[in-house]
């Protein structure tokens, strides 16, 4: 889509989404002195380091203590600060979900939870560190906003948007490099989904590292005679129901794809929306009630079926079964 200023597939870049977060946090900190950052002994890998180096007086190192990480941030938010807390998603929100609920979400303080190293892109670290349940965990929490950016450029914009958002937010980041599809001019707004590729026959709804997979699949499907519409849905909550329903009214068939558990995540959110408003055939792609394991991201994505080829197979099945 020209007005979205997306890169053509052959021009895609490659960078981990966490890098975009690191840049965005520094920019947010330059604009607003109330932005502060807290980390639990992972400054380099979660990309808090650039902020901590530039604004040491606004940085708090809490040590390996994720419960403390978010509860200290809650106290800072109470005093007007905009605290960004970062750790691996497996530990925050994996370990401290109740503290997030009680002291940030129910208490309604604008604590920003950054879950880095989420999903299969965590690779060789294995199942303990490949957080796949975070989207579902955070989506079920009232007051919480859940954002899964599609690439590092969008992660940067999302971080800046979060600094200006009065609600508690969750931002999901990946460890390894993933394709960069968007540019500085591509719009991003919390709560908005974007039609990255228009089509008539089928709607593919994706976010995070899986949006690039959906885009590649759509291009190949077009050559097979299937005109797929790709909706990039970085905000899982609040869900942009209007954009999704407009598309699905037209195509009447849906694939969702995400690098997380299919229960309760993007696939869950879309199924709930369509189940109540516009029941149509839907295929959810993601992790199906199992844990990850060690391997390269490519090996893992192949093993769990999150590939361009599988999106195409599912698209053909949906389009041919009408």
């Amino acid at each position, binding site marked *: 889509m020209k007005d979205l200023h997306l890169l053509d597939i052959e021009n895609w870049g490659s960078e981990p989404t966490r890098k975009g977060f690191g840049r965005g946090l520094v920019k947010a900190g330059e604009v607003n002195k109330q932005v*502060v950052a807290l980390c639990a002994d992972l400054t380099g890998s979660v990309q808090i380091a650039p902020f901590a180096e530039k604004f040491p007086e606004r940085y708090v190192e809490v040590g390996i203590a994720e419960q403390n990480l978010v509860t200290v941030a809650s106290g800072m938010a109470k005093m007007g600060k905009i605290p960004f807390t970062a750790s691996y998603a497996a530990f925050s929100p994996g370990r401290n979900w109740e503290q997030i609920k009680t002291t940030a979400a129910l*208490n*309604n303080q604008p604590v920003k939870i950054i879950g880095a190293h989420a999903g299969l892109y965590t690779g060789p670290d294995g199942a303990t560190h490949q957080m796949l349940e975070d989207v579902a965990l955070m989506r079920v929490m009232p007051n919480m906003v859940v954002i899964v950016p599609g690439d590092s450029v969008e992660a940067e914009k999302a971080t800046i948007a979060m600094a200006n958002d009065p609600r508690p937010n969750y931002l999901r980041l990946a460890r390894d490099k993933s394709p960069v599809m968007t540019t500085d001019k591509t719009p991003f707004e919390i709560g908005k989904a974007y039609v990255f590729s228009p089509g008539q026959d089928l709607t593919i709804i994706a976010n995070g590292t899986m949006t690039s997979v959906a885009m590649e699949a759509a291009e190949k499907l077009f050559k097979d005679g299937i005109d797929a519409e790709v909706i990039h849905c970085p905000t899982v909550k609040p869900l942009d129901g209007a954009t999704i329903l407009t598309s699905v009214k037209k195509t009447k068939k849906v694939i969702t794809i995400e690098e997380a558990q299919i229960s309760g995540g993007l696939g869950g959110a879309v199924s709930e929306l369509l189940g109540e408003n516009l029941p149509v055939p839907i295929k959810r792609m993601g992790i199906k009630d199992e844990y990850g394991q060690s391997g390269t991201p490519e090996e893992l994505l192949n093993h769990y079926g999150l590939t361009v080829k599988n999106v195409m197979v599912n698209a053909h099945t949906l389009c041919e079964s009408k």
Partner: protein
Amino acid sequence: MGKNYTASKLSIDKLELIANDIRQDIIKSLEEAGSGHSAGPLGLADIFSALYFDILKHDPENPNWEERDILLLSNGHCVPVQYAAMANAGYFPKDELKTLRKFKSRLQGHPEREKLPGLENTSGPLGCGLSQAAGISLSMKMDKVSHRWIYTVMGDGELNEGNIWEAAMLCSKYNLHNIIGIVDRNNIQIDGTTEHVMPLEDLKAKWESFGWHVIDIDGNDIEAVIDACSMARAIVEKPIVIIAHTVPGKGVDYMEYDYHWHGMPVGLSDVAGAPPKNEQAKVALKELRTLRGKIRNEHE
């Protein structure tokens, strides 16, 4: 403009009478609620009288006064004592205490900041208050705000939570000496005595080894509570914790020292040695009125 209670001192006997009022209000509100915790709130009444009527810089008519001290209740289940103290201090009409734990009440079973002006945090799940105090103190430090103190009331059973000790390390690391922790050392938790459920002693040595200055007092002695807080405000080398030894159920003979009353309201309990259920509140209030007379006589 805010009100500074330390500027117009009430006498100790007045504060004791207020503590007695708070205790009677706790009994009445718990009986009306039909659920809730009795022992902890009764034991904390002297500390809350001292806090709201002497120690805290605050203004009931302007709960968000920017110069106020911050009081965090970390052990949220003891909130009946805070509600009673707040009502007596003028935050809301005393009549509203009857709505405790009722549908649509501002006085939720566990405190919710957004429901009632004057509450500084939402709590109930244990172990979070000291971390929030740390975040508040760090923010004050960044903003170069001094002379505002953060009082954090914790239960002793609550110290089982790892989150507390994560916070204790952090407060010490950043020398957050405007935090004054108050541990309600009443030796009971739901399943029994603290030393039976999960031994805490040597508690003073534990806090000291985490880098805290410890002040040990009788938490039912209002003068001792006020003195300890004055001393705490003068210490700048370390964060300060006051281990306040209190009698659980203080003021109601059949509840005192009995852990069975930790999570029980008056009027619904079959605890051995207690009066019949329908008499429990009456007996408690009668005892408290007698105590009130004694306080008056002592100071005449």
